[in-house]
């Protein structure tokens, strides 16, 4: 075996190990200066992007990389599997994480202890959950990313954050319990927990165990729906996301995508077309719930009183859009996979922007109350305008391409067209209202209004420039590179449509 083969053999586990090692290292450096920790966090972020890109290139020729932990053959040992979908998600997460961690360097990481450690542990859990090929291992990685997210969501403290955090933690603990019930039901019905093995066994499931397997499968949808904030399990999201600090909320933009990923994976692999009696188990539920989530997201955005809550409801609307796309079948999945990174970056951009605006409006923060003109309002108004265009999916940015592809994939679904277009209009109105309140509805600064301290009058801080500029750049890159990105998303959807590729890649050697 040559060295390059040996390296690519371990490439699959690298995105899981890098944040874990970094987290342990940062824990040991916890008493060192924040500058050192920030530098290390940014460096690790860059390394992670490098590995994610290498992984994406390695799977771009339709090979599936598997990594057998402890070298036990699947289905007995746990395997990590990198297919196009997993590599795509890992890359999106690592790009988003770098922008979020740069923004956190602006002071958020000073509000409490161990911010960078928790941040890396969250990335560890996310990467593991995307790459694992085992249902129970997915549960374990979910728990890792959740307990890190509990710490991050509560980071900085304060009554509002604690109240929202309590709901978030209790809801997710309940979700974990349901996940265990689901995994247990599926194991008892099908005798395996390896995703590929389950997919292979689904077609020849004995009729006696069908009920158990269906119950387990729908409980899985319940759990993943909770993570994805699918209606009616969305109630924890607006408070938790609007209540936490901006860089954490920006990173959490990918947490709902984690739930969407899990739904997509089980929907196509376990309950896909080849699954016999289990085929299409999620289908009656996905589309109606997704469209309802989209409508609730739009209504929430229209009713929001602060930029933070508005951004949180935009996350909800994007969850609805993506799940509706997934419910449309292979073409819809392709469109959704292109729209997914766009909506993640756009949501993160909104959270960071609302924080940047909050720091500059001394009296009313990010609420839609009149305030004195913020310094350099033209620049920030311009950035907000671009972010709003991205968030609503108007031309010329990538959101438009994504929504256009989703509509194109739904020729026989008038409801999808109607709700997607009306909700886009509603979100345009909500964002126009937000922008005009925040930037145009200004009052003369009274003597009671505290004057801005000198350092706030600068155009932007370096961390804001790199984080917000980075997200804008990513959206721009996704727009300019729409051709290759859409091709990749199409090929991913085709790969997902044929579960036998995944099954053979994982079980091939033992069959």
């Amino acid at each position, binding site marked *: 075996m040559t060295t390059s083969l040996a390296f690519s053999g371990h490439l699959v586990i690298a995105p899981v190990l890098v944040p874990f090692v970094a987290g342990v290292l940062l824990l040991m450096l916890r008493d060192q200066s924040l500058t050192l920790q920030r530098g290390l966090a940014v460096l690790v972020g860059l390394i992670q992007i490098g590995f994610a890109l290498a992984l994406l290139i390695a799977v771009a020729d339709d090979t599936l990389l598997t990594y057998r932990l402890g070298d036990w053959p699947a289905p007995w040992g746990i395997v990590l599997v990198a297919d196009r979908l997993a590599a795509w998600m890992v890359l999106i997460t690592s790009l988003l994480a770098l922008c979020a961690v740069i923004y956190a360097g602006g002071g958020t990481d000073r509000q409490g202890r161990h911010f960078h450690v928790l941040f890396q542990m969250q990335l560890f859990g996310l990467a593991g959950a995307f790459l694992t090929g085992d249902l129970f291992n997915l549960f374990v990685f979910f728990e890792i990313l959740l307990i890190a997210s509990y710490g991050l969501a509560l980071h900085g403290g304060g009554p509002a954050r604690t109240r929202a955090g309590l709901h978030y933690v209790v809801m997710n603990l309940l979700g974990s319990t349901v996940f265990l019930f689901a995994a*247990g039901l599926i194991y008892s019905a099908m005798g395996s927990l390896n995703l590929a093995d389950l997919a292979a066994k689904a077609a020849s499931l004995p009729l006696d165990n069908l009920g158990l397997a269906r119950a387990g499968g729908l409980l899985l949808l319940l759990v993943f729906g909770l993570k994805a904030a699918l209606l009616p399990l969305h109630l924890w999201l607006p408070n938790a996301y609007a209540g936490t600090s901006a860089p954490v909320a920006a990173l959490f933009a990918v947490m709902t995508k984690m739930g969407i990923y899990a739904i997509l994976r089980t929907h196509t692999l376990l309950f896909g077309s080849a699954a016999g009696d289990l085929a299409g188990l999620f289908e009656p539920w996905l589309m109606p719930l997704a469209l309802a989530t989209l409508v609730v997201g739009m209504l929430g955005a229209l009713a929001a009183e602060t930029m933070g809550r508005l951004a949180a409801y935009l996350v909800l609307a994007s969850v609805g859009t993506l799940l509706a796309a997934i419910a449309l079948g292979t073409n819809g999945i392709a469109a959704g996979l292109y729209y997914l990174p766009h909506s993640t970056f756009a949501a993160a951009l909104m959270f960071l922007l609302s924080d940047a605006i909050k720091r500059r409006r001394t009296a009313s923060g990010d609420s839609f109350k009149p305030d004195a003109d913020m310094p350099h309002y033209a620049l920030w108004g311009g950035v907000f305008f671009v972010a709003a265009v991205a968030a609503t999916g108007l031309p010329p940015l990538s959101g438009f391409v994504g929504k256009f592809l989703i509509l194109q994939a739904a020729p026989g679904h008038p409801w999808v067209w109607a709700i997607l277009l009306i909700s886009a209009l509603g979100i345009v109105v909500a964002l126009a209202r937000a922008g005009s309140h925040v930037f145009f509805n200004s009052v003369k600064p009274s003597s009671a209004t505290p004057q801005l301290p000198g350092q706030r009058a600068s155009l932007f801080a370096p961390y804001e420039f790199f984080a917000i500029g980075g997200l804008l750049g990513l959206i721009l890159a996704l727009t300019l590179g729409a051709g290759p990105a859409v091709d990749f998303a199409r090929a991913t959807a085709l790969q997902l449509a044929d579960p036998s590729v995944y099954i053979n890649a994982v079980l091939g050697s033992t069959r």
Partner: protein
Amino acid sequence: MEILIALSIGVLTGCGVYLVLRARTFPVVLGLTLLSYGVNLFLFATGRLVIGQPPVIGLASGHADPLPQALVLTAIVIGFAMTAFVIMLSLRARAELGNDHVDGRDGGSQA
């Protein structure tokens, strides 16, 4: 024995769900604990109930499924850590919000 195990899981889960729906953090934490007990027992039963057999193939006439035992062990450890976390969070919520209502608002006497 099946009836006994099924009843135990059912009662634990039912009590857990009831307690989680209460408005104070202490019953909610207790409810989460009962739910995790229920699910741990349930995981044991997913390998089918076998009495007096080792979880190793070939040592005796039959064998118990070893995988659920490993799953339960993992689930117990994770559940324990999460319970510790939610207790600390409830104490902090009590300190910061001034009461133990799950919404942080003391809405009268309903407990």
